């Protein structure tokens, strides 16, 4: 269990903007607001944090009593979910099909055998096989709004949650104010509307790791749309010279081979950007070819 951080917001001055800060979904979150009105910035930051915390509370797999906990503790019984959860499950269903089974919200249980801490502890292949019995969206019966999950299987919306929250927060801010804001949840970000006093928001993509700092921070300019990054900067295993990325292929239960260290994708929404970067990581060696084929705007690091 992760300790829940203290929920508070703060606003401070940034470069020609005001920056609202809070923590949500285990990430530092910031809202860059093109305004010099502190009261307005505080109002928008509170609104953003409120929406982020609502989504975190509702969909975090670490919290007891929420919809995810109810689904995962149903012991094979059918449960009826609310509209928002149903939309996320529909989305996950589509992604499962689009990725030919590589994107699977039931793959979280593989964490029982895989610990990506930079060490060399590979799991016993038999243990992986055993856990794999409890993985597979195709084993789930989903008839909106009714979900039936086999006992022992679990749903983890963590692969979608943060990008979804960024888009939801951006949508709320767009409705609530006229100034441009950049919603940045630990590198997954979206712009509410094109800024007026500048050409674009400037965002840094961090180097892959401090040890690999021959590649400098890349600065991106974004006027509209969103960016999302998938990567394994810290989360990986290394044994016998082979680096195992934390991106697991739910069909085999083993890490995707020769995946890039990170993939950043720009798209109209953070959700699309996040899914394209995740699907690219799941393509492993073919990540760039996949993104090229999709006509995506991306920055890949290996």
């Amino acid at each position, binding site marked *: 269990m992760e300790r829940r951080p203290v929920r508070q917001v703060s606003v401070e001055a940034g470069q020609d903007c005001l920056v609202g800060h809070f923590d949500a979904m285990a990430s530092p979150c910031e809202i860059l607001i093109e305004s010099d009105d502190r009261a307005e910035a505080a109002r928008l930051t509170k609104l953003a944090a409120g929406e982020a915390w609502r989504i975190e509370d509702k969909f975090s797999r670490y919290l007891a009593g929420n919809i995810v906990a109810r689904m995962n503790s149903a012991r094979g019984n059918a449960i009826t979910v609310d509209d928002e959860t149903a939309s996320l499950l529909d989305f996950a269903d589509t992604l499962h099909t689009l990725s030919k089974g590589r994107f699977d919200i039931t793959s979280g249980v593989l964490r029982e055998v895989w610990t990506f801490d930079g060490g060399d502890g590979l799991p016993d292949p038999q243990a992986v096989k055993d856990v794999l019995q409890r993985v597979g969206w195709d084993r789930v019966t989903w008839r909106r709004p009714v979900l039936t999950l086999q006992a022992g299987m679990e749903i983890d919306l963590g692969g979608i949650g943060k990008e979804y929250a960024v888009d939801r927060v951006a*949508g709320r801010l767009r409705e609530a104010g006229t100034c441009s804001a950049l919603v940045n949840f630990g590198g997954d970000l979206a712009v509410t509307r094109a800024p007026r006093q500048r050409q674009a928001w400037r965002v840094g993509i961090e180097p892959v790791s401090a040890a690999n700092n021959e590649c400098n921070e890349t600065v991106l300019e974004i006027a509209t749309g969103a960016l999302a990054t998938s990567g394994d900067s810290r989360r990986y295993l290394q044994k016998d010279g082979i680096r195992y990325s934390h991106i697991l292929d739910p069909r085999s239960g083993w890490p995707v081979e020769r995946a890039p260290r990170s993939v950043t994708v720009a798209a109209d929404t953070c959700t699309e950007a996040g899914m394209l970067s995740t699907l690219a990581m799941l393509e492993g060696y073919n990540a760039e070819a996949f993104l090229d084929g999709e006509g995506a705007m991306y920055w890949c690091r290996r």
Partner: protein
Amino acid sequence: MTERKQTSVSAALAAATCSLLGAAPIAPVQAQEDPGWDFNTALLYYGEDNDRVQDLSLNILGKRYFVDDRALSLGLTVDTLTGATPNGAIRQGVPQTFTRPSGSSVYTIPANELPLDDTFKDTRAALSVGWEQPLGRLWKTSVGLSGSFEYDYTHIGLNGSLSRDFNQRNTTVSAGLAIAHDTWDPVGGTPVPFAPMLDVGGTGNKTGGESKDVIDAVFGVTQVISRRLLVQLNYSFSNSSGYLTDPYKVLSLVDGVTGDTITRVPPPGVEGPSHEFRFESRPDDRTKHSLYTQAKYYMGGKVLDASYRYMTDDWEIDSHTVDLRLRWPVGERSYVEPHLRFYTQSEADFYTISLVDGTELPAFASSDYRLGNFDAVTAGLKYGWTTRGGNEMSIRAELYRQTGSIPGDLLIGNQVGRETYPDLDAIILQFSYRFSR
């Protein structure tokens, strides 16, 4: 921003996201890597043999891209020209003395040598500024301003272009227009056409500054034929009007039988020309048409770039240029690029060797070797590499050889055998460095 073609996954993903969020995205993504400034710098040396023209130039072009592919470019060129250039007079069996363009002193050319004016020395600074702006997804425009300044010559220009992509960006059609106004303020004044070269101190043959206006238009099509082949076809039109004469070039006034230059004697105590020389005269209008075609062929890392240009103008100069480059990768980070260029041109209709004494002057005449009948070959090699920091460097060395011939019917009497086209060999060395910051 590159056009994003929506294939199955991204289109389905966009639809799924739209229903998840209950709304379509309000604006398409506009993002790009912030490139800062991209600088292209080059140091170029051009040197002709036999102490003729030497040019050293430094070029800096900075380009800054903004979101949505708008770009600002700023260019600076500084160059220094020194050396001697043929003044247009023919060889003689005796030494020849000429008054310098400034009119303040003389120089003497030994017998049987090609008369070269060694007063040639100039420093030029050129500045340019440009702005590129896409209009929507398929249209692109650019506008630019240029100026160059040297001791006796000033150029101011304005240019603009418009292009549109068709056929899933496989076809680009473009049009460009440039106008320029150039002003001559030659050392010692602008010579009156066909006026005689006077003694030191004489100014009766010169007037003030002159100018010309130039309009250039280009229409082009670029077509991607396949993943390997890209072709381009351009038509361009150019019209210059105004003062098109070279104020420093003269013609020898010769005897109609011997072909030797008429001698003269400056008054006692005064320095001046030893022979009769007349300043040249060119038409005040020139229209050029040219067709240019280029193909780039990509084959496993190697790139063959071949082009051909045909130019014709109403001075009756026709020229053909064939240019071939082959870029050949060497290892991961470098390449070599051999270069061959062939050029040939016919002479202008008013090109001549000398003016005949006692006959009616033609309307126009020039003996400038650049308006003559000549061929030129350039052969060179470039080596380029990418530094660890991702910057690009290259060195280029080329040899240029220009050989011409004088049509036999232009030679009179003793000129036959004595007068030859002033052939030219030159070397070109270039170092270039491209970096971003």
